[in-house]
């Protein structure tokens, strides 16, 4: 059984073979003896090369979250990292939401000239209000946010062009 994972820049390959009561695992070519101690929905306890370890995991779409010993990891299927940030090389400067939020106010209109540092929008989340400022002087080429709209973190709000 072969599995491939990607996490940020790193990728890895895992092979599992049944071996006695457990498994022989190959991770990037290195072999480990693994036994499943316990298996419950979302929890997995292993004896990994003799060490007992408990993992909590959850699936969110194609992403796997795993927690062990106070550290959290996420694993994606390989080659899934189609650059979410898209094409920013078109001369426009993208202004994105720094947090998931509701749009409280939009203080520019499409076509407006803007200065560097000028407040473009007000966002609010969890009783906290923040100003989204223009990172550059230019013109509002696209305005993709409206008052009352809910936006995700990193969602494109405004494109500033020349």
């Amino acid at each position, binding site marked *: 059984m072969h599995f491939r994972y990607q996490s940020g820049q790193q990728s890895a390959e895992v092979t599992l073979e049944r071996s006695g009561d457990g498994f022989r695992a190959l991770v990037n070519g290195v072999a480990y003896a693994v036994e499943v101690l316990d298996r419950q929905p979302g929890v997995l306890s292993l004896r990994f090369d003799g060490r007992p370890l408990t993992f909590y995991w959850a699936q969110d779409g194609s992403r796997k979250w795993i927690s062990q010993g106070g550290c959290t990891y996420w694993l994606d299927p390989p080659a899934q990292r189609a650059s979410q940030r898209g094409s920013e090389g078109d001369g426009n400067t993208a202004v994105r939401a720094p947090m998931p*939020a509701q749009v409280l106010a939009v203080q520019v209109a499409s076509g407006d000239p803007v200065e560097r540092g000028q407040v473009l929008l007000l966002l609010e989340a969890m009783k906290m209000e923040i100003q989204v400022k223009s990172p550059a002087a230019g013109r509002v080429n696209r305005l993709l946010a409206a008052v009352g709209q809910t936006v995700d973190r990193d969602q494109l709000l405004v494109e500033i062009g020349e």
Partner: protein
Amino acid sequence: MFKKVLVANRGEIAVRIIRACREMGITAVAVYSDADRRALHVRLADEAVNIGPAQASESYLSVERVLQAAAATGAEAIHPGYGFLSENADFARAVQQAGLVFIGPTPEAIEAMGDKGRARTRMEAAGVPVAPGYQGLDDPAALEAAAAKISLPLLIKAAAGGGGKGMRVVHQLSELVEAAAAARREAQHAFGDGRLILERYIPHARHIEFQVLADQHGNLVHLFERECSVQRRHQKIIEETPSPYLTEALRAKMGEAAVAAARSVGYTNAGTVEFIVDSQSGDFYFLEMNTRLQVEHPVTEWTVGIDLVQWQIRIAAGEPLPFKQDNLSQRGHAIECRLYAEDPANNFLPATGPLLTFAVPSGPGVRMDSGFTSGDQITIHYDPLIAKVTAWGENRPAAIQRMTAALRETVLLGITHNGQFLQDVLSDPQFIAGGVYTTWVEEHFNGWQPPQCGLPPEVLVAAALAQLQPPSAAADEHDPYSPWRMPNGYRVGQ
């Protein structure tokens, strides 16, 4: 004692109050917004009433809707928790006028402490130290005259509000007028009240607060301090008691000041007197009084052995406190860590998402207060507080060790949170030495990034095994203890 209490809140504090009611044999009524229709506090309550849409202003902040819910369910008293309507004197008055009991202080006490400017005046009169400063500064000339009498740096604060809004630090007299104008605009915008207070700014200040408890029969005690200097954006992250800073003499002095402050406004029920302490000189100054239960009340409960929520309810029902100041003492040390849905590597900005997996720590000396379980959603509508982990130990190092172990056991998948950041603070030598102050996190953890955990082989193997289908039952028949044979039940933390 009340037969039925309405809990006008949500999240962990609503769960906490519902538990206290259950232990006291009181029926607990929850209220909820549309976004909280399936929330834990609703699932745990004996009854639950919808009070409006997700926006707090139309649900949890609506005096009318909350009172309607109380009337509809026949609740005799309302516990406001913290936040929302808890420090709203009009609400407290409306509760009384509806013939119900407000579980908290009188509207008059709330009002007396609600305005920072007026509270400052009252505290001075009561002999409680306030930071050198002035208020009622309407024109630039008066401002400059006042500033000249205080040594730099200066702090400009909004008289009406809190939470850092309308606050400015002035290091040079030349910045004064412009800073004041900006602060006034911000205060006017946020509180509809542009009045300002000018105070000496205390660098390396510690935030140390005293819990007070008062019945309706004139008994008023303090339950010692909480050290709350680990803050980001004026919000507490880690609280503990006893404070590693206070000497016995200073503790006694501040405790007396807290009692005097509360007594001067005829305070009843639970409240907290917050002080700013100059860590160089040991001078302390009244900051404000929170006329309600505090988020961090569990560390006091651990060390003083008093159930604050149960006593809030008993005091509201007219019971006298059975103890005096001399009967109270602290035992051991307790720490609280706030698990926030936020990204410490992104200026601590809020994060939202599903709690795919939420496993809580257990074991002796560990307490978890949470308003959520796995499967719940954290939305943009309310507070980022997911849960509070508290740990008690025989002394401060033991409490820190236990808290560290508890945080390592806490599992929170599906959402960005500050769990790793909290672990880093707990292991910081300056924190361990007790030498922190309110701007310490900002200065010391500026640019913080989560430690690179890498991709250890065991995690990759676990991921593969997690997605592996169990073999047929027959395959493991030789092993009566095979985990693949286990029935598929519910399971709890270790």
